[in-house]
């Protein structure tokens, strides 16, 4: 389908193993084609602002950010704060992924404007709900039956 071509997910996670599992999960749900994986918050901000190694990228988006909280250099809280306080970027849905339901993580990410909060490993049901609430029905549509 047409919209699928534009799907672009920015996956921000410093753990290659977690990233591999997440990408694998996205792939199982036919969503891996346009996933870009960056390793920390600094790279994530470089990506959305098209600077540094991403200065020349042509594609629009990303249309969804999957963001780890605990990362070296710039952490997930900082990335959320920057994106959500930028009028040009704040429409991009941010889904925080983290290891636990620590209250302070949850409350902090929500207070900064994160759209949702998912405990790893990624629950695709929850992810699809977030995406469809943001108007992105492609994620729900493309949910593979196997899970």
């Amino acid at each position, binding site marked *: 389908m047409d919209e699928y071509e534009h799907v672009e997910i920015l996956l921000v996670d410093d*753990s290659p193993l977690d990233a591999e599992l997440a990408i694998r999960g996205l792939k199982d749900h036919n969503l891996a084609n346009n996933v870009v994986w960056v390793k920390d918050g600094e790279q994530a901000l470089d990506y959305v602002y098209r600077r540094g190694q991403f200065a020349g990228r042509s594609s629009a988006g990303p249309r969804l950010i999957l963001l780890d909280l605990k990362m070296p250099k710039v952490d997930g809280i900082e990335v959320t704060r920057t994106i959500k306080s930028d009028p040009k970027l704040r429409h991009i849905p941010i889904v925080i992924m*983290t*290891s636990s339901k620590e209250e302070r993580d949850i409350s902090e990410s929500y207070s900064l404007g994160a759209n949702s909060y998912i405990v790893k490993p990624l629950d695709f049901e929850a992810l699809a709900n977030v995406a469809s609430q943001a108007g992105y029905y492609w994620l729900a549509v493309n949910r593979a039956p196997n899970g």
Partner: protein
Amino acid sequence: MSGRPGNPVRGKLLFVVLVATSLALVISGAAMVIYELRDFRQTWVDDLTAQADVIGLAAAPALQFEDPDVARDYLALLEAKPNITGAAIYAANGSQFASYSASGQEVTFPSLPDVDGHQILENELVLFKRIVADDEILGTVALRANYDLTGRLLDYLGMFGVIMLLSLAGAVLVSGRLRSLNAQLEDRVAARTAQLEAANKELESFSYSVSHDLRAPLRAINGFANLLWEDHKDRLDEEAQRKISIIRGQADRMGTLIDDLLTFSRLGRKSIEPVELDMKELATNAFERLGSDGVDGKTELRVGKLPTANADRNLLEQVWSNLLSNAVKFSSRKEHPVVEVGGIVGESENVYYVRDNGAGFDPRYQGKLFGVFQRLHDESEYPGTGVGLALVHRIITRHGGRVWADSQPGDGATFHFSLPKDVGHG
């Protein structure tokens, strides 16, 4: 933090000491002055009356023998009483018989009254006293004495001022000592609080780190074991599949253990917010939730009388849910599992209980029942991490209550917990 100027507690302490001292002095001083002033006139009157009696007694013969010189000599003895400014002896007919003046100037007296008595003229007290001998009135003694109320009041105020100053000086000295003691105490409290806060913070960052860092490798173990299963299942023989499923199962179990341990550790730091709780509602809701969590519905719940409690809702929900899930779990092998809840209203505390007809436990191991990760049954028979009862114990203890259990193996178990009627601490 030591020796801060304007320390609120220290300042308050000094203030309180000074105010209390001053107040006590003012009240006692005022009471004393009021009493004294009331007493002053009566004392004077009594004193002068006695004086007049003595003079009258002594002057009676002089009156009888009409010898005013003798009477005058007696009156002259009043020199010893500087407060008495003048005196006179009147004969029975009312004429002045003899007189005395402290200053040497003539002293006047008001006209003689018909009876004994006294009156106050400006700053002086005038007293008349009959001289009586053998029931015959021989004459009258009149005394005039200083009655200086203002001077007296000023004397009192002066004395009071001195006492006040001395006491306040003493209070300042004492409170100085108190302040330094208090400062030491405050410093110690501050140091302890800082230590506790640091320990608490450390514990918090420890549990935060546990929940994040310990879970990351676990997630990889579980995730990649899953991938191995999904991607290579066909190439794995039965034994390899069995081993992978063990890895996955144990990784899951470790995740649960971490969760339970974190819940347990957070419990020590969470503050208790006591509210009035309908324990019947709490218990039945907890039981129904167990049913929706996949526990088969064959267990019968019998709800007896359950007095309301004053406790933290969230924490008590955990207590009921742990005790009930335990009861259901350990009676699950019975043909007709029955779980019974009830309570007894006590004088200062209410006691609640959860009774089952399940496996029970050996009372010899009762002491181990409420320890973390303590299990009295085989994991394969009755699965669990062994945190539930430790959690119950911690919650109830933090509410100021007690937990205990009694049982015989195979005979079911009863878990009791008590909650004080007023939970004021947390």
